[in-house]
């Protein structure tokens, strides 16, 4: 606290660089809490030990706290990327590392990407300085042009991370099991979506048999399974509904089949992609199946997406489906572009609040972590972004990002490159510029 007097003279935003355990107050902003308090003008948010203590209008901050002046600013929860390979890939093509994809068939459900997460990857800082504070990191199957002959209809387990610097960046394992149906699943299963469905059913059936006859299995008195024990154990979370299936699927008829399967096994599912999900909006709402969609992908990229349309997000939200967004083109390196997806959904009928919810609270709800993050509410972890203007506008970039109460450094490899080449003085090559 003795540092307070030296910080006092700073005009705008004060960057606390050290301890988390301080008390901080964000004062004067328009706060979109995404919680029951709605939007609060001239709000004060008090943060202690990484958590939000209080949020209220015009409340005087406690004495002797580090104050962040947000007067005239917009304050939102940290953005939450619901899909992608952050921390699992640096340069995907012909470079590496690329830890989101298996190169053989050794594992299915137990392929847990949490173990590969690298919080020091350049992608982490590049995305967090633009407001991404949380991400669900997902395995993915082999792409159509990648080498290998693995199946991977079941790609493996997703994890939830914070994009901070601490060793506690891995927040939760097994937030979803990634599965591919439809055209992609068909390609991975030998050329028919029947094969993809059979692969999934076989895995679930074996997991059930293993669960119900574990003692026999361990005594060698049960038939052998096509999946190893690690995979069968990983599937138990799906059977208990602790872990939803995260299903890449677009075509309406495939979504109908998925809904039947989910009902039959009594498990949970989240749809990834869902170009034609809007056609089944009411049914998805009734089945409590959320959709993570790419609102800018409105072209029929394949025959699964013939009925893609601009208004998908608005239609799904109106029916009561929980939605979140991902950039269909680059949800890893440019996970930060989640605000563009949200803004375009607004341009096509979604309310602004629902759009912001889709990139903050909704993914936290979808992946079962909304009790700790996703909104600015007392008791939640203080992931907060301070913006100079409307965060969905593409001309707007964050002024300050807090992850678990800590003001992060707003530099990244890209800002360093930029700053080096902003200078134009000659004499020495750029490598000598700092």
């Amino acid at each position, binding site marked *: 606290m003795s540092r307070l007097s030296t910080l006092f003279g700073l005009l705008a935003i004060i960057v606390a660089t050290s301890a988390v355990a301080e008390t901080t107050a964000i004062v004067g902003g328009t706060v979109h809490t995404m919680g029951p308090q709605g939007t609060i003008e001239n709000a004060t948010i008090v943060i202690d030990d990484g958590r939000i203590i209080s949020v209220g209008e015009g409340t005087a901050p406690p004495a002797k706290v580090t104050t962040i002046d947000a007067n005239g600013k917009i304050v939102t929860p940290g953005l939450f990327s619901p899909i992608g390979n952050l921390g699992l890939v640096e340069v*995907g093509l012909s470079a590496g590392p690329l830890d989101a994809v298996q190169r053989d068939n050794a594992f299915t459900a137990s392929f847990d990407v949490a173990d590969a997460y690298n919080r020091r990857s350049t992608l982490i800082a590049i995305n967090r300085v633009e407001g991404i504070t949380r991400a669900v990191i997902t395995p993915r199957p082999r792409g159509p042009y990648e080498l290998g002959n693995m199946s991977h209809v079941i790609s493996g387990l997703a994890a939830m991370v914070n994009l901070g610097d601490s060793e506690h960046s891995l927040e939760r394992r097994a937030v979803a099991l990634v599965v591919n149906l439809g055209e992609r699943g068909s390609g991975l299963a030998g050329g028919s979506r029947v094969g993809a469905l059979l692969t999934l059913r076989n895995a679930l059936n074996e997991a059930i048999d293993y669960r119900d006859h574990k003692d026999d299995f361990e005594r060698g008195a049960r038939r052998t399974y096509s999946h190893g024990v690690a995979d069968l154990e990983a599937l138990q979370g799906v059977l208990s509904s602790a872990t939803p299936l995260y299903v890449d699927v677009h075509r309406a008829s495939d979504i109908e089949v998925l809904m039947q399967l989910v009902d039959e096994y009594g498990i949970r599912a989240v749809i990834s992609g869902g170009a034609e999900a809007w056609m089944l909006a009411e049914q998805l709402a009734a089945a409590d199946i959320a959709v993570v969609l790419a609102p800018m992908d409105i072209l029929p990229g394949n025959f699964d997406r*013939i009925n893609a349309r601009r*208004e998908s997000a608005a239609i799904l939200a109106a029916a009561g489906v929980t939605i979140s967004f991902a950039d269909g083109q680059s949800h890893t*390196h440019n996970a930060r572009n989640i605000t*563009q997806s949200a803004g375009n959904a607004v341009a096509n009928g979604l309310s602004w609040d629902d759009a912001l919810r889709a990139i903050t609270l909704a993914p936290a709800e979808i992946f079962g972590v909304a009790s700790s993050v996703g909104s600015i509410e007392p008791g939640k972890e203080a992931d907060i972004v301070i913006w100079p203007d409307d965060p969905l*506008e593409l001309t707007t970039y964050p002024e300050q990002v807090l992850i678990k109460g800590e003001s992060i450094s707003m530099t990244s490899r890209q800002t360093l490159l*930029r700053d080096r080449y902003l200078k134009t003085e000659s004499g020495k090559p750029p490598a000598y510029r700092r």
Partner: protein
Amino acid sequence: MKTLIVAIATVALLITACDAGKGDDASAPFASRYQPLPGRATLLTGATILTGAGTRLDNADILLSDGKIVAIAEDLSGENATVVDASGRWITPGIIDVHSHLGVYPSPATASHSDGNELTAPVTAEVWAEHSVWPQDPGFVTALAGGVTAMQILPGSANLIGGRGVTLKNVPGRDVQSMKFPGAPHGMKMACGENPKRFYGGKGLAPATRMGNVAGYRSAWIAAADYRTKMEAAEKGKGEAPMRDLKLETLVGVLDGEILVHNHCYRADEMSIMLDIAKEFGYKITAFHHAVEAYKVADLLAENDTCAAMWADWWGFKMEAYDGIRENAALVDRAGACAIIHSDSEVGIQRLNQETAKVIGAAARVGIDIAPERAIQWITSNPAKALGVDAVTGSLEPGKMADVVVWSGNPFSVYTRADQVYIDGALAYDRHDVSVNPVTDFTLGTSAAEGGAQ
């Protein structure tokens, strides 16, 4: 009225200039058979107009007639013109994408539609992208809904020299000839870096390295120069003309300045090498495409009058894209070079205005203020220049083609949509009237057709 008279004089001048263009030769193979849509005189009133020529006019009118822009001023009168109240809305030139693969990599992206890369040899200057364009690509219509009135369709980047590109008007036709931009020169696609060496090197063929790439370009130019010498000699009666060679014909077209080089090139050091190759063989590089590191050599680009066509933020998907920064286009522009925002994507082409907005905001963070009237040039007049059509489109000036977008608001807001798109003065798209909008054959019967161009 004085404005109007000056305007009409300018029209005549420009039409003459355009008619003199070589590309208008109707006897040329695959010549343009483009016919503008039927239109009528239209007066758009009370708008904020970004002219694409660097200026902004508030509360201004623009008169379109006979396919051309007639005048831009306050309080214009347009007798016999349909008057459209555009107050509160913004008007810009039609958006132009210098780098698209619509039609050659169409939607749906099936293997049977994959017609963009002639993956059979590293130099395929003999192929023309227009022979692969599928006019029924629904992507043309969604691009139109994003305000795109013209675009260059290029071959892919697997080859050192991938073939000829073609500039199209975004009016879906039965065939590519009826979409070809009248008078536009051909482009020629070249590619630096990873793609050619990965594809051919991976097969044990040349090039397998960047030095192999450079040897490949230089060998091609040596063959072209030799062909040109023999052709010219034969014309003067010295020796027999060699057999006509489609590949070398394209390359000679570049050496003669009739075909414009569009060079896929990410890294700063490679752009520098390519500029030296161009000097060695006496051709010009019109634009580097993707140009992820253009900001590192912006001064070189300015010196060589070479444009950089860039994404706003694509980076890291391969090693040569690792140093991408959001401020790239702004730093190129600051150095006095020609900055272009391009798409290379059927998704991105629908929102080049939004991509530009990202750069405006990023530049502002570091104190580079880019006014809307300047930024709009990155997606209108600058790409028009790179396509060699800036005399007739790319800015709102009397006499130019009436390629015009009426936006619901500031085009650099994410909430703004293109309300109307005029191409050669004809209403080609209307967000509020789906009956106006084209529906490709492929789209019939789908939800996209029900919503027109959505």
